[in-house]
């Protein structure tokens, strides 16, 4: 029984990183109804920037964290300008496929700059743990959970209590009408993209600090975990992203404990499949709504 609860706690902790990744995905998907496959690789670029500062200049955790977030945001803006801003209304597939191409490009760029497969990443709180009776919680995991809940709350407040949030929700509701009331739709979308990638950067920093290493494959991992967590939680729902992430983490830890590590991802995908069949909108989500439009050149 102790094992079961300890596994659940570990699952929640690991799941909070998935939740953070899904949160950034949700901001992009919720606003643009567009799938950005380069989301993870953008975060990986941030991670590499952090590692370079750590290795070459001995930067501390705060500077590295800032570099990861900033690097991810800049890479995110690059992806938006290249794959999303120029695409016409209704060309969601074109955006998705071109974001796949940029994924490959970012991965190759990272390999060119740092050709070894693995580079060290500075830890945040080296393996320190807190004890609650028979249970253990790693401090860096706890920071992850706090960040996930805090950022989810911040995103929710931004969406529902600020002028920028009003603009984003108007764009979700009716992009043409959003133009007509005077919202600068293109700028709002760019900002949303940068913010989403920055949130991904926070997730990236925390996960890399726990792993203490970064590889070019981190991008794919981040895209996959974020995507699965978002789809389980609910497309375009902020609480859904976090709950989906936590649930995925718990499912993974229990699968690993009861069936072995080779079954961990298999079972996670089975759960995703079950959700797609039975509840395609996810736990909290609405079914996907019609495509977004931007001003058309006549």
């Amino acid at each position, binding site marked *: 029984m102790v094992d079961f609860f300890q596994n659940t706690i570990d699952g929640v902790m690991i799941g909070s990183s998935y939740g953070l990744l899904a949160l950034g995905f949700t901001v992009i998907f919720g606003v643009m109804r567009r799938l950005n496959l380069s989301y993870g690789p953008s975060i990986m670029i941030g991670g590499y920037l952090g590692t370079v500062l750590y290795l070459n200049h001995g930067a501390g955790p705060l500077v590295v964290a800032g570099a990861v977030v900033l690097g991810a945001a800049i890479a995110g803006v690059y992806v938006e300008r290249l794959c999303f801003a120029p695409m016409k209304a209704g060309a969601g597939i074109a955006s998705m496929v071109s974001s796949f191409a940029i994924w490959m490009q970012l991965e190759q760029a990272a390999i060119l700059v740092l050709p070894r497969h693995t580079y060290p990443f500075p830890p945040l709180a080296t393996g320190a743990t807190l004890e609650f009776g028979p249970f253990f919680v790693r401090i860096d995991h706890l920071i992850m959970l706090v960040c996930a809940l805090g950022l989810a709350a911040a995103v929710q407040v931004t969406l529902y209590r600020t002028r920028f949030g009003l603009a984003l929700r*108007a764009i979700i*509701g*009716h992009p*043409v009408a959003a*133009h*007509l*009331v*005077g*919202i600068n739709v293109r700028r709002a979308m760019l900002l949303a993209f940068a913010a989403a990638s920055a949130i991904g950067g926070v997730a990236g920093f925390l996960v890399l600090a726990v792993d203490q290493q970064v590889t070019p494959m981190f991008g794919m991992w981040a895209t996959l975990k974020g995507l699965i967590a978002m789809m389980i939680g609910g497309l375009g729902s902020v609480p859904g992203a976090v709950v989906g992430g936590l649930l995925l983490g718990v499912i993974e830890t229990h699968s690993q404990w009861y069936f072995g590590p080779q079954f961990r991802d298999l079972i996670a995908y089975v759960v995703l499949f079950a959700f797609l069949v039975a509840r395609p909108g996810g736990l909290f989500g609405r079914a996907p709504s019609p495509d977004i439009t931007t001003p058309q050149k*006549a």
Partner: protein
Amino acid sequence: MLDVSDLVTAYGKIEALKGVSLHVESEKITCLLGPNGAGKTTLMMTIAGILQPRRGSIRLGGTELVGLSPARIVARGVALVPENRLVFPQMSVLENLLAGAYQRSDKAEINVDVERMYTRFPHLRERHQQLAGTLSGGEQQMLAVARALMSRPRVLLMDEPSLGLAPLVVAEIFSIISELNRDGTTIFLVEQNAHMALQVAHQFFLMEQGRITFKGTPGQLAEDEVIQRAYLGTRRTAG
């Protein structure tokens, strides 16, 4: 007030507006009538900056609007109540109104205007916390008008405000249009309902196949003929 001259807007190779010129007079109701596919909505979307014209000019007072972003055009004082209303369905009535004032930063004045809208459209006050998507068609039209007014426009463009509404609601909408105009709002109205439109309009234009084919005041042309041309067109009729 609003001057459109030689405006050409095309979808690919097909020109929907083939050189449209017209003038909207200050503090009057100007109406644009015409059959389906004449290019009326294209004209409205071009004035609002959603569509880019191939050539021609749109001037408000002395300012050229062609080439400005939709947001800039709203800031210059043009607001469009779009066809099919396009309220933000997942936002409350109040949030829709606040979105209408997106270009403004005078918070106190915005609240005064919200109060004004509630006074003019009492239904909206009753339902101010309700999601706009749950309102009836008529209420959504009122909300769309109020949302456009929240930007304090110098010219209010309305694209088919009576579309899909019950006759009683249509009458209400048109009495609101007259009322707004009496308070000094310049209105440029696109309508299919020629009978109602001619009752409120000070001057009107007929548009057929992307061109203005008549300009005048109601009474200058028999209503029968206006209606025939507005619904069926005169060019290339069978026979």
